């Protein structure tokens, strides 16, 4: 006959027998209570983002950083702060990788079995250089700001410049 969990009515799936001071102590638990008691690891129910967020929090010394967090922490290209990254586990733009390098690279290494460098495929075409990418990102941001501020003259000029830069790189 199947045993029930010691703590609820579900069938027990985890069984432990301990001998303490010569006395046998049996424990029978269902998946849920086994995970809760630490008898087993509850598998796969935590969304990966949450896992990463927790992981980032633990390993980045969250508390210390929170005290220091100032506007200087924000990525100059997209305005993402490290605190926002910790919350969402999403970076805002390619520049974030440089902005948060110091705090990010140990996390990246831990998430990738200690790896710190890419060794795989690279785009066959050299593509636009890093500086060119940055320039485009910044101009597009200024264009957005100009449109928002209804400065259409500036917006038109920026649009032309972006178009030209894109032509040059194409």
């Amino acid at each position, binding site marked *: 006959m199947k045993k029930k969990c010691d703590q609820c009515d579900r069938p027990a*799936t985890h069984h432990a027998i301990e001998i303490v001071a010569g006395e046998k102590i049996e424990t029978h638990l269902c998946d849920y209570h086994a995970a809760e008691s630490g008898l087993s690891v509850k*598998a796969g129910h935590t969304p*990966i983002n949450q896992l990463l967020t927790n992981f980032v929090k633990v390993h980045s010394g969250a508390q210390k950083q929170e005290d220091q967090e100032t506007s200087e922490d924000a990525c100059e290209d997209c305005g993402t702060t490290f605190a926002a990254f910790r919350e969402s586990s999403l970076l805002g733009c*390619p520049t974030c990788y440089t902005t948060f390098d110091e705090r990010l690279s140990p996390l990246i290494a831990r*998430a990738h079995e200690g790896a*710190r460098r890419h060794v795989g495929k690279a785009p066959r075409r050299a593509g636009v250089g890093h500086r060119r990418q940055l320039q485009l990102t910044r101009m597009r941001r200024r264009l957005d700001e100009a449109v928002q501020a209804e400065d259409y003259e500036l917006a038109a000029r920026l649009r032309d410049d972006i178009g030209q830069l894109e032509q040059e790189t194409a």
Partner: protein
Amino acid sequence: MTLRHITDRAGEWLRGEGPRSDVVISSRVRLARNLAGYPFVSKAGRRQQFEVLERCREQVVSKRLADEVIWVDLSDSPAMDRQLLVERHLISRQHAAGENKTPRAVAIGSDETWAVMVNEEDHMRLQVLRSGMQLGDAYAQAQRIDDVLEEKLDFSFSRRFGYLTACPTNVGTGLRVSVMMHLPGLVISREIEKVKRAARDMHLAVRGLFGEGSEHLGDLFQVSNQTTLGKAEEEILSEFEHTVVPNIIEYENQARQALARQRSALLDDKIWRAWGVLTHARALATDELLQMLSHVRLGVNLGRLTEIDIRTVNELFLLSQPAHLQAVLQEDLDPAARRVARADLVRRKLGGH
């Protein structure tokens, strides 16, 4: 070609053919890419999001990729269509839901072997699907598509970190390799937790049929790599082809054989009980159906149940999902009516009573 055309077929990943299809349902390869010169999706302004969408569309809906490409604008498509695409594993649940009304879309090769999600977490997520154990083929096709796209699109790339992605867990190759496996033997013999633990020790993720939180459905498990940096694509692939997947198949087969040898009556009971339910039930919830189908599939693969072929079983895994069921019946149903309709469909397909 529209979305409606693809609903009548079972779709590539559930054809139930291909090498090792007794255990491996499907192979999937995904590449994450972002356009250079734009912020990632969550930080891009609306105008930039539209621009990214348009740039990707120009390149993806191209004769160079497939004779016919279906482009589905997800921002203004009905919830039922989006659900259908999730059930077919062509888009993620996240992409279907679409946070903050981000303009987003999916391009689907008409043979349904590949799809490109645009403006999901990254600008582009290309995935290639194959039934059975065909990771090599899937990867080769993903590379071809990636090469074609990068002729015209500049991807955000750094020499140090490789392809840059919104979440640093995908950085480097941006490659996620997943294999969907049917592991009823390991579940019945309660060995599955051991396998999951071993997989985690190898830095692999184990999820259910529809990702996180669906682990119990139909004894179907997706195993995928977590490490994307510091290993070349071929290395990641080779680990799966030569170590991970063969080992899990071996464990599963051992479990099946042990059950057949030592608990033959219990095994038959599970198989025939499931067959009984499927051919006689008058109402079936999705979870219950998937569980019963799993045991029937096991029975067919062990040669203990010869009433139907594996193809029909695989088809039912998909057709009985809520959106597919309604697409087949062409009517909107509430959950209770759906359970009845689902049982009817299953009985009809299996020649039940």
